[in-house]
């Protein structure tokens, strides 16, 4: 009999199978992720996700008997009161027994298959849709962006990291402590010996020789550099210095923003959030929605609630200004703002908006992104909305202002392009 310890075997033997499974169910998973995004909070975008997919693409058919017709016999345990000939009414369909696909009319059994996507897998699907360049994707997906930081010395490590000075210092200390004979002492003694021999003082020569031998032995036993002395430079992966940021989500909540447009806006907010959360340890979210009046709301209301009324964008900007003044002192917080709108604004309001942006808000913000979400059919039209034509002037004045018009998730990313480009430029 052998006992083998397999616990140390490489883990996740079935990783290959999992990858194949996800590849197989890609289309379904993508749909499920879209669904999940709708339900998720902006700040939850990075969590693990329990995904429920339709079993269509991962079906494993086999010949099996249907339960809809024919006669069956069962033998069951636990009879308490039945006699032969008794009649029992059938349990309601679906419970117990068969449990299999109940075959909807189009032949698609709807047994949902539930499993959990890891954070990485979820983000990968999320990014895939957004058409991020690979470099950016990698940057975002790496869980933290740690940098190696010197963290003292260690007694173990690769030769390349050998710390010579420290090693030699240890060696020296040890040699002194153990009284390793110095080369000079031995040389001197050898000279003495030669002198004594030359002088014919045999007794002295013998004594010196004996001493010399002892010294030499000691020297052999106590090495010059011992494995004990070795020190290596140690590095620790430390997250880069982090600070805090606040992200303002501004959105037009008037009725002209359809569900689809709101979804699109949500994707935009999520991506900005993911990006910010890479750079800052704490990211606060502030949701401000507006019609003809603006209010700070919680996330659910922000995306779900419907309001009627006109559209006055400046109210939202004023609200943002108020919140900044109240809670987010500029010297402690990095302020980011993302505005999503379908472009409508009360025409007399534009001047006020521009004034607010140019004079008050933009000087406070690290970055202000505006996306105009439009239905696909209008995406190509040349028509410039109120906001668009107004903001174009702002865009010309300020580097950290970005604006885009998007009609599908894939168009969102370019909005961030400037931001990343700036980031790269700073690093270079």
């Amino acid at each position: 009999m052998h006992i083998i310890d397999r616990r140390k075997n490489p883990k996740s033997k079935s990783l290959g199978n999992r990858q194949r499974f996800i590849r197989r169910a890609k289309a379904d998973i993508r749909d499920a992720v879209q669904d999940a995004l709708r339900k998720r909070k902006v700040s939850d975008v990075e969590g693990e996700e329990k995904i429920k997919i339709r079993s269509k693409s991962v079906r494993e058919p086999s010949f099996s008997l249907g339960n809809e017709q024919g006669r069956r016999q069962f033998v069951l345990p636990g009879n308490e009161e039945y006699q032969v000939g008794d009649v029992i009414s059938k349990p309601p369909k679906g419970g117990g027994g068969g449990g299999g696909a109940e075959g909807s009319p189009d032949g698609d059994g709807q047994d949902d298959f539930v499993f959990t996507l890891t954070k990485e897998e979820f983000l990968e699907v999320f990014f895939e849709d957004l058409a991020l360049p690979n470099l950016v994707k990698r940057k975002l997906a790496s869980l933290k962006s740690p940098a190696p930081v010197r963290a003292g010395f260690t007694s173990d490590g690769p030769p390349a990291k050998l710390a010579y000075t420290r090693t030699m210092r240890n060696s020296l200390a040890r040699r002194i402590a153990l009284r390793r004979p110095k080369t000079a002492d031995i040389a001197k003694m050898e000279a003495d010996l030669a002198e004594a021999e030359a002088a014919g003082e045999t007794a002295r020569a013998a004594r010196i020789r004996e001493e010399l031998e002892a010294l030499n032995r000691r020297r052999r036993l106590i090495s010059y550099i011992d494995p004990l002395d070795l020190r290596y430079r140690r590095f620790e992966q430390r997250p880069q210095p982090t600070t805090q940021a606040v992200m303002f989500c501004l959105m037009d909540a008037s009725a002209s923003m359809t569900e689809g447009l709101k979804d699109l806006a949500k994707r935009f907010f999520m991506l900005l959030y993911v990006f910010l959360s890479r750079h800052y340890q704490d990211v606060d979210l502030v949701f401000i929605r507006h019609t003809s009046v603006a209010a700070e709301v919680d996330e659910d209301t922000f995306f779900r609630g419907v309001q009627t009324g006109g559209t006055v964008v400046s109210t939202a900007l004023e609200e943002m200004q108020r919140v900044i003044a109240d809670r987010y002192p500029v010297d402690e917080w990095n302020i980011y703002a993302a505005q999503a709108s379908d472009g409508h604004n009360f025409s007399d309001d534009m001047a006020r908006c521009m004034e607010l942006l140019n004079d008050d808000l933009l000087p406070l913000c690290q970055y202000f992104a505006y996306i105009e979400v439009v239905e696909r059919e209008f995406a190509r039209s040349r028509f410039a909305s109120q906001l668009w034509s107004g903001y174009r002037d702002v865009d010309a004045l300020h580097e950290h202002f970005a604006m885009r018009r998007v009609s599908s998730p894939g168009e969102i990313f370019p909005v961030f392009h400037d931001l990343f480009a700036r980031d790269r430029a700073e690093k270079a």
Partner: protein
Amino acid sequence: MAATNQTDAKPKRKRPAKRKSAAKGAASGASSTLLYQGSEWSFDQVQKVYDAIEEIGVGEMGLDIYPNQIEVITSEQMLDAYSSIGMPLLYRHWSFGKRFAHEETAYRRGARALAYELVINSNPCINYIMEENSMTMQTLVLAHAAMGHNHFFKNNYLFQQWTRADAILDYLDFAKAYVAKCEERYGIDAVEQILDWSHALMSHGVNRYVGPRKRGGREDARAKQLARLEYEEQNYDDLWRTVPKATNDADRGRSAREPNDLGLPEENLLYFVEKHAPKLADWQRELVRIVRSLSQYLHPQRQTKVMNEGCATFVHYEIMNTLYDRGRIGEGEMLEFLHSHSSVVFQPTFKDRRFGGLNPYALGFAMMNDIKRMAEHPTQEDKDWFPDLAGCGDALGALKAAWADFRDESFIHQYLSPKVIRDFRLFALDDDAEDSEMEVSAIHDDAGYRNVRRRLAGQYDAAALDPSIEIIEANLSSNRRLVLCHTVREERLLDKAECERTLQCLANLWGHRVKLLEVCSETQDVLVEHDALPRPL
């Protein structure tokens, strides 16, 4: 806890340790010492316990086992093993990933506990034990798997006939490498397609009635064939393409084959596809063959769940009690064992929320114990029902004979006694899909015993597990149509949607039109026809 992935439902319910009284405890403990104490286990202890168990199992009970190999794994590795149908190594396929994702989700949610152990029908017999188990659980598991299952694997006729314990690990290794090689060469998608289609037919990849084909010297021939294929590929010369093809005579000779030449009717769909599908390339045939071999290897386990678990549970119960009687394990450990033992063999009644069919551990263990009881202390009823067995005195001999020569269906048919029927309070129901009510047709009384027994045995019959489908016609000369026939019993038709999907897989493999007739077993009327044209993705 058999080699197929199977979790032990572990409903918590304690049964008092009634078998061992205090008097026994006093009688023991004279000379021998405790094998271990506490719940932590170590390799030395496992070795020591294994030796003690082997001494009892092999030395005294006379079990005949393969050498054991015990492998300690983590819960994650156990999940891994689950998803690959309990195989230690297996080719890559998304369906295993699916299973893993499913098991993992259920496990993390706490909905399901993992099996304590997994055992592979191989020589040496591989037992996986989990590092999370306590020492008592390791002892139980060793007695259960390394003795019980192992003996069953080695001695049951189905396993002897269908599986080759010596070769399975090598074969799986080969299969894994071969599939990987094909993926590299022909692309993951191409390989996946063939495996998908073959998996769909997996339940019809065995010859249930005639037994496996003779294998004499075939493996050598196969090796040669593979080598020749490889040689041909290496020495491929385009010149040969220009040489005139054989004349039509040869073709005609081939196409003139009668259905009888094809061995029709053929119930082993995968075998037929592998041998005769007109359009498959050689590597595709080999993939089909790999799936078929796997199906064949797993076939006996599906047919011997009750016996296999019954045998292993009986053996672990005997061994643990012997160990306790001799003072080799302590009181607390014995209680821990009884606790998990009784939850393993717990049978909820049909009204219980936990009810999920008859528990093979419970039924198997009850029947094995019953055989022992009848051999040693028969009642008059037993003598009437089992004249040969009752009072024969050699319980172990009788059990070993049963373990060797039966499968679930025949075992229940032969050995289910009125006492077990009464203990389980079994009753039979007739269910007609057209009625809204079911009728009780037999209960545990004199009039009903035989009826209940016959029906219960019928539930474990191979025909009750899978619909009986055969290939009855294959046209290899003109339109190459394949015709299958499902023999409909008790008006039970195939699940339509599933059937059409599966038939599609078969059509894809076959490469031409495939037709499935559902024929009533009594009137020979064709009830339904399904049709599928190949539609490779």
